[in-house]
């Protein structure tokens, strides 16, 4: 019984973004790459599932530039994943990424459960998990903060807009995309880190998957930083005077009230 966890490597949240001179993307020099924060919840849930289901095997999978992307797999292995696969690829859009992941999962014999983070914090697309589910023809729930498994199905809680919670039952196999709150991701243990270092990571070239260049649907260009803000206007006086000045400014100057 295989559990696949789809992972993405993203710039650390502390990263100050710099744009390339031709605006074709961001300058990745000096960026510290980490596991997408939401993916940590997915890895943790996969390992918890394995702890309860000893026949389960956790396979970590990522698509990205191999040289650095393997690090996210080592992190997952150190946390407790059993096997890892990297699909060596660059500059794919969501749909080709999802198709590649789905093809490899299928080639490995399919999954009982696929886990992913609800969103990658780099492009904020929230697309790949649902697309993987469609390509695998399995049900999915995204933004999940509670997960329970029985042999035939999974019962999950989805965080919808406005604090609403949806309780959903998915017949297995299924895909679940994790939200914060699902669990507390464990730290890698020292023996785990040692083991992960030695583990052979399976490498697959994207070009061998038979996904045509015309499958790519979306292109991004014209990267730019937000416009500089003018200096802050500080309001002075005692609390009452400051409050009055602010309300005045919001109504008559900024006109937002």
């Amino acid at each position, binding site marked *: 019984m295989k559990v696949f966890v789809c992972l993405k490597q993203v710039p650390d949240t502390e990263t100050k973004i710099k744009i390339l001179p031709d605006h074709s993307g961001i300058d990745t020099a000096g960026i510290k790459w980490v596991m997408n924060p939401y993916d940590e919840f997915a890895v943790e849930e996969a390992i918890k599932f394995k702890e309860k289901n000893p026949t389960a095997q956790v396979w970590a999978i990522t698509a990205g530039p191999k040289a650095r992307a393997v690090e996210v797999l080592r992190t997952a292995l150190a946390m407790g994943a059993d096997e890892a696969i990297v699909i060596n690829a660059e500059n794919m859009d969501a749909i080709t990424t999802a198709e590649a992941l789905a093809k490899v999962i299928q080639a490995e014999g399919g999954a009982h459960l696929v886990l992913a983070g609800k969103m990658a914090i780099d492009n904020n697309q929230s697309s790949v998990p649902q697309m993987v589910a469609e390509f695998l023809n399995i049900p999915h729930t995204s933004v999940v903060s509670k997960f329970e498994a029985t042999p035939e199905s999974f019962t999950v809680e989805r965080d919808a807009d406005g604090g609403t919670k949806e309780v959903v039952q998915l017949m297995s196999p299924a895909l679940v995309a994790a939200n914060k709150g699902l669990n507390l991701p464990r730290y890698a243990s020292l023996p785990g880190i040692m083991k992960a270092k030695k583990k052979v990571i399976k490498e697959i070239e994207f070009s061998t998957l038979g996904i045509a260049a015309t499958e790519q*649907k979306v292109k991004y260009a014209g990267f730019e930083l937000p416009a500089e803000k003018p200096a802050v206007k500080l309001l002075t006086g005692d609390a009452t005077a400051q409050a009055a000045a602010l309300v005045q400014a919001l109504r008559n100057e900024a006109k937002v009230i």
Partner: protein
Amino acid sequence: MSKILVFTEFQNGKIKRSSQELLQFAATTGNTVAALVLGSTDGAQAAHHGATEVLFSADAGFNSYNPELFTVATAEAIQKSGATVVLASSSSTGKDLFPRVAAKIKAGVVSDGIEIKITGDDVKVKKPFYSGKCFATATFENTNVKIVLMRPNQLPVAAADVSKSATVTELTFTKPSLKTIIKDIVKGTSEKLDLTEANIIVSGGRGLKEAGNFKMLNDLADVLGATVGATRAVVDAGWVGHSMQVGQTGKTVAPSLYIAVGVSGAIQHLAGMSGSKVIVAINSDPNAPIFQKATYGIVGDAFEIVPALTAEFKKVLAH
């Protein structure tokens, strides 16, 4: 002329403002505007905002969001309508549904749009990356259908024109055997708009000292009709739920007015809210980084400023 299909969402029987924005915008592009209405027979509201065609299905299955059912029906509607552009809101439903639809019909999809330009069939969408640390413009290729999910509050809305009407057609589709069962829906306790739809947000950080003091922000928010947000520090402390977190690992928001109280302005928090039109910072530390992003700043004690502000707004808004 091409056709734009707008996926409409309703709340308590009323078409959502975010859907009104999309319909009205679509009508300005010179293309035919069709609306998809799932879970209701009410095509009139979509017509009042600019749709001249409405595809609807009142199937009871649409009363709650089931990704499998919605995917099949939406894909069918796109194909039947002949639309080449699909617009939806970057809402909880829109963001979940449309990537799956895109994979099904092999179309391109861009979420979280903040600016959109449609010239005939040509679509350009600006969207934030890294939750707003930078922006880029998306274009489509190799796709017959272009799907764009727009963030709420990015496009203007005029009053409904009740004299307008549309051709209303019932959508037929083959129901799949569902492997997804919606067991229960527990409505959020808040009557407020979701953070991502709110036009005014009052956000609190660790400067509020303890959970109970969020009451002060709720009072201010009530006067302003605002939604309350928070930093990760206070979410992690358990003062408020994660659904209230603003930032790179929370919600990305862009309201007209964002009031940050006792929030230092960490890079991850700024990423999620610096797209706000007007930012007010209330912080006792004049060197807090939040002041670098703020339009207006008050250096002072939140426990004095916030009640004074609530009182002042009450006074002014009463007139």
